[in-house]
């Protein structure tokens, strides 16, 4: 990397040294040759013999020096520089010196080079030295593929001969930039006694840049006889040509072109329309004002409309005056009106000044009517302001007076302002439509609906603890300390209560009747099942009620006496009877167990009661216990929720008898197992 940098530095240094040497050599050479050139240029024919001898010696010396390419190059540059600064006789002598020394031959040699920079250098040299013999050699390069060569060749062709411009316009195939056009025109202006050709001949050229250049030359040389051709060009597809044509029309004051412009005005684009309006500004008359006023009604650009108005004012000053927009809610005082202005009319409207005072009566009326029509059809900006204002009013005033407020309805209207009702009539129609629509719905009493929902919810709940009316037994009295801290203790032992009292309290809290009423059956799980199964399933469930049912099921069975199915009715009666017997038996057993607990501790080791009957566990009454316990895990896993009740039968026996609400009937049996069995039985 360092070596490369070093090499680069060395290369740059050497290049700089070389260039410095070369420029120093060139400066020295120029200094040596300058007196020679001066002598050659200002030698006089009537000079004495000594001067002529000196002249010949210098000429021989120069020829010797010009054999060297570098010297020849420097000498040629000197002559070219002087050729730019000199004119008249000195220039002619310079040209003679150039050709006498055969420097033009070396320039011709450059035209044969394949390198474009050498080629262009040769063209420039020959053109600058005005070597007219080079015209035929240079003109083929007018359409050279290289832009630099092409442009130099074009300039050389036009400058070397007067007919060069015609040849150039005939043969140019490439585009001609505006700068190139200006340079070519500058070359033409340097011709003395130049008679320009009729450039209208090239208005039909296939090259649009040639047409544009021809229009520029027509305008420059004031060739106004090309009026007919210019009118034809108004229909040219190129907008630039149209605009250039319009400029010519404007300069030449071709009034005949106004009517075609009026006819074709709507077809033009905005830029062309602006140029047309410029023409009307210069050439228009009062009879064109009608046409200009119609422009305002057309769907044109805002700038075109403004231009039309300004054109009207140019033709007839003060015809169109500035207008102030109508304001409906703001007063003049809010706007800051003039202090000397008269009192505004009611409503805060500012009158529009009457235009066209200087015009004839008939024309003034026509213009006034046209202006009024314009006010009735506001511009886009006015329409937007109006819509905005209407929306603000609508929001502030709310619904339309006397009409139904339907703003809450998601009406889909075809109106432009996105559904906002514009008038009261449309809103009314929509409201009537809505009222007349047929509605399919049931009238639901809110209270009845709530009651049904609550019953369905409560039917699924097992109330284990005390009802809300009773203070919770787990919370003892609260004592406030000096620090305002409340100390409390949790009592883990549930308080014993009568189940009937509990049921009554619960029902009272739920707003229901006494527990003896049939509504207590809603706490049974079978009620939900019976609601959704058929008669056969009900028969199966009745058997299960006998197996696992309690008092709740007993009460529920009473309600089945009104079932549709006769079999269900009969069986429910039978099951109710048998379940009652079972419950009585259980109640007796529990009472005996309670009595045995109250006996002295010496009898604790006894495993039998006083009656000789061993204490039964509630599970023993369940003949399904074995089947449930023998159920294989994994069977019907969808319904099998693996959980176990923590309370044992001993704890359960400590609870009061018949406390069915506190404990399930068969705590050791999974309820889901039971339901699973029922489900299996229902579906065979």
């Amino acid at each position: 990397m360092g070596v490369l940098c070093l090499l680069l530095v060395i290369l740059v240094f050497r290049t700089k040294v070389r260039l410095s040497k070369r420029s120093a050599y060139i400066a020295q050479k120029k200094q040596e040759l300058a007196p020679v050139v001066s002598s050659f240029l200002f030698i006089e024919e009537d000079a004495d013999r000594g001067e002529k001898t000196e002249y010949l010696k210098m000429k021989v010396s120069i020829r010797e020096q010009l054999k060297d390419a570098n010297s020849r190059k420097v000498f040629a540059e000197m002559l070219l520089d002087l050729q730019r600064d000199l004119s008249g006789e000195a220039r002619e002598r310079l040209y003679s010196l150039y050709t006498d020394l055969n420097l033009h031959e070396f320039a011709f040699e450059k035209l044969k080079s394949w390198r474009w920079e050498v080629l262009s250098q040769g063209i420039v040299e020959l053109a600058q030295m005005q070597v007219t013999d080079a015209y035929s050699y240079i003109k083929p390069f007018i359409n050279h593929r290289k832009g630099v060569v092409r442009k130099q060749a074009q300039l050389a062709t036009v400058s070397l001969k007067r007919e060069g411009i015609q040849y150039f316009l005939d043969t140019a195939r490439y585009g001609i930039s505006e700068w190139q056009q200006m340079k070519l025109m500058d070359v033409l202006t340097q011709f003395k006694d130049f008679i320009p050709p009729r450039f209208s001949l090239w208005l039909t050229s296939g090259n649009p840049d040639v047409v544009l250049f021809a229009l520029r030359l027509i305008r420059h040389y004031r060739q106004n006889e090309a009026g007919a051709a210019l009118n034809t060009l108004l229909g040219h597809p190129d907008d630039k040509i149209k605009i250039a044509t319009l400029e010519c029309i404007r300069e030449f004051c071709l009034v005949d072109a106004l009517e075609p412009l009026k006819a074709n005005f709507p077809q033009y684009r905005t830029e062309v329309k602006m140029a047309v309006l410029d023409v009307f500004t210069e050439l228009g008359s009062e009879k064109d004002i009608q046409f200009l006023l119609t422009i305002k009604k057309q769907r044109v650009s805002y700038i075109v409309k403004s231009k039309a108005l300004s054109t009207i004012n140019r033709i007839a000053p003060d015809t169109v005056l500035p207008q102030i927009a109508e304001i409906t809610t703001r007063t003049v005082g809010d706007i800051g009106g003039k202090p000397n202005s008269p009192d505004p009319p009611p409503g805060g409207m500012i009158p529009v000044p009457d235009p066209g005072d200087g015009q004839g009566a008939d024309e003034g009326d026509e213009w006034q009517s046209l202006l009024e029509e314009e006010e009735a059809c506001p511009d886009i900006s006015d329409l937007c302001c109006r819509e905005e204002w209407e929306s603000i009013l609508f929001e502030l005033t709310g619904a339309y007076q006397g009409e139904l407020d339907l703003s809450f309805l998601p009406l889909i209207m075809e109106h432009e302002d996105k559904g906002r009702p514009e008038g009261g009539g449309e809103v009314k129609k929509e409201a009537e439509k809505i009222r007349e629509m047929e509605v399919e719905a049931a009238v639901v009493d809110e209270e009845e609906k709530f009651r049904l929902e609550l019953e369905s919810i409560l039917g699924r709940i097992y109330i284990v603890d005390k009802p809300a009316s009773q203070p919770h037994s787990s919370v003892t009295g609260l004592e406030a300390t000096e620090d305002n801290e409340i100390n409390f203790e949790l009592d883990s032992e549930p308080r014993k209560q009568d189940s009937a009292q509990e049921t009554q309290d619960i029902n009272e809290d739920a707003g229901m009747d006494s527990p003896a009423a049939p509504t207590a059956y809603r706490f049974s799980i079978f009620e939900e099942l019976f609601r959704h199964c058929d008669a056969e399933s009900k028969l199966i469930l009745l058997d299960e009620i006998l197996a696992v049912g309690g008092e709740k099921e007993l009460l529920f069975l009473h309600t089945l006496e009104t079932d549709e199915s006769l079999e269900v009715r009969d069986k429910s009666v039978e099951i109710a009877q048998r379940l009652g017997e079972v419950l009585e038996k259980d109640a007796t057993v529990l009472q005996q167990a309670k009595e045995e607990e109250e006996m002295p501790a010496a009898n604790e080791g006894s495993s039998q009661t006083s009656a000789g009957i061993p204490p039964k566990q509630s599970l023993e009454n369940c003949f399904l216990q074995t089947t449930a316990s023998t159920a294989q895990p994994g069977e019907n896993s969808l319904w099998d929720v693996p959980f176990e009740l923590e309370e044992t039968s001993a704890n359960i026996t400590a609870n009061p008898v018949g406390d069915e609400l506190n404990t399930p009937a068969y705590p050791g049996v999974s309820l889901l197992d039971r339901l699973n069995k029922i489900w299996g039985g229902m579906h065979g």
Partner: protein
Amino acid sequence: MTAEGIGRTVLLAEDDHLLASLIGFRLEKAGYQVLMAANGRDVKQYLSESMPDIIVSDIMMPYFSGIELIDYVRTKLLSTVPVIIISSAGNEENVLTAFELGANDFIAKPFSPSELLVRVGRELTKT
């Protein structure tokens, strides 16, 4: 060498060495003594030493333009020496400014050295 300019000094201020050499050669051939200055500083130095009979100056020069030279000669040196301005084509505004400051004549490029010689002789004849 003609007797037209014998005994007359011309201060030529032109930064183009070749053109200056050409003009100087022509003026010397007409008998004038030509003092050539390549920039405005040399012009000021010459003017501090002695005032020439006529000044021929280009408008665009390094360090000290022809406009400033006219202003210097007319306001600082309070001299009425004739000044001829050589201007390039399209420099009309500068020409007008030079006339306002007191230039006597101007000649635009490209020009004929013979024409310049005539103008110089005419201005010297006036004085």
